[in-house]
């Protein structure tokens, strides 16, 4: 465990607290990744800053054009949100595959993203939703496409002390799916996962956004396959060709959880199933 955990009451207080803390510090949100790492002896920060109850990072808000999910909103609260249900179908489809019910009562999308794991179910789905991430560092704010936050395994574009404030999902009429292959039906880390959102117009794809988990160094936005699908009707041939294309776009590895070839193959299978589900 760290030597100290501080718990600022507001974001303003957080920025004021920082200079007095050990440089070897990390943020604590839901705790499901960082405390596990600590219990396993691989997390060795001297100081954690508990941001899980900061009011500025909670709540789900809507504007005319977007929905904003606070970075520290619990996954189970997103599941209960009517706004999220309406505007984030791929994210909602991912939630049953996100860890277990009790971990969903603790975990947050902010932690899921900041942890930087390529297998993160929540952020892979958010990438397919075309989400943006809002970051804050003292007075400075910036907004990035979420897909650009991830640089490699456990590496993100977050600067020292920068905080994830919220995720912005543009409101648009679209369908979403999230399919995952893990060691069992529920509560497992994925071997491969596919998140898809599509806007259909007269049976043809207006816009598609495909993201994949556990098959690249980052939650992968499949830029080529997504672009290729635009303007096409979802026929069996198109779906088959999209599956072949996506398999060429991923770069899975063989590790303790699965084999590279199997993972690549499953990306095609899962994308076919996801696109099939939009046909009716």
């Amino acid at each position, binding site marked *: 465990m760290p*030597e100290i955990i501080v718990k600022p009451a507001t974001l303003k207080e957080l920025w004021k607290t920082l200079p007095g803390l050990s440089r070897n510090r990390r943020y604590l949100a839901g705790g*499901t990744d960082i405390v596990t790492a600590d219990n396993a002896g691989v997390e060795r920060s001297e100081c954690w800053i508990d941001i899980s109850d900061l009011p500025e990072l909670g709540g789900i808000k809507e504007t005319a054009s977007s929905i904003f999910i606070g970075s520290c909103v619990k996954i189970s609260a997103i599941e209960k949100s009517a706004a999220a249900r309406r505007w984030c179908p791929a994210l909602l489809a991912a939630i049953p595959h996100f860890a277990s019910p009790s971990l969903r009562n603790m975990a947050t999308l902010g932690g899921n993203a900041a942890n930087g794991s390529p297998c993160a179910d929540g952020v892979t789905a958010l990438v397919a939703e075309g989400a943006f991430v809002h970051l804050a560092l003292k007075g400075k704010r910036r907004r990035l496409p979420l897909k650009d936050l991830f640089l490699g395994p456990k590496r993100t574009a977050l600067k020292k002390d920068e905080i994830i404030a919220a995720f912005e999902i543009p409101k648009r009429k679209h369908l979403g799916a999230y399919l995952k292959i893990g060691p069992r039906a529920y*509560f497992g880390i994925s071997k491969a996962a596919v998140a898809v959102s599509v806007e259909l117009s007269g049976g043809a794809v207006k816009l598609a956004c495909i993201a994949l988990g556990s098959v690249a160094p980052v939650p992968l936005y499949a830029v080529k396959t997504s672009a290729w699908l635009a303007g096409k009707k979802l026929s069996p041939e198109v779906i088959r060709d999209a599956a072949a294309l996506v398999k060429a776009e991923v770069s899975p590895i063989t590790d303790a959880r699965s084999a590279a070839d199997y993972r690549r193959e499953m990306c095609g299978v899962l994308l076919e199933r996801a696109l099939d589900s939009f046909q009716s």
Partner: protein
Amino acid sequence: MTSKTATFGLSCLVNGHKVEREIPSSRSLLDFIREDLGLKGTKEGCGEGECGACMVLVDGLAVNSCLMMAVQLHGKELVTIEGIKGKDGGLHPLQKTFMAEGAVQCGFCTPGLIIASEALLRRNPKATLEDIKLELAGNLCRCTGYEKVLSAVEKAKTAK
């Protein structure tokens, strides 16, 4: 700030009683429950959120206390297995059906299973067998198996 002064003034409700304690700020919720409060019904199994033996209710939601820090309980309500009771102050319906169905062998997973089941039945008193299975996805039992547990939870729906 040194580790010696790194304390936190924790204020919370525990099984209906107000608790105010000065605690080491890096205390896990599980250690706070077992060591500071002396409530030993909550167990540590895996320490990585896989087994559910450490489950408690925080603001009515089931959480894994091995992965939560005590500071995160500040201003909230904790219910441990010791706070699960029937309306008459005796055994809770889930405790009765777990006993009647033989859903307990070594008993290590039982507090977590009862907490998870209670969270579900509070939210959804008409939970189906499938709902119960999904809700208990994060609770491992290595000796009783799950059939008797599932049937105990099903029977508790009407025993309430």
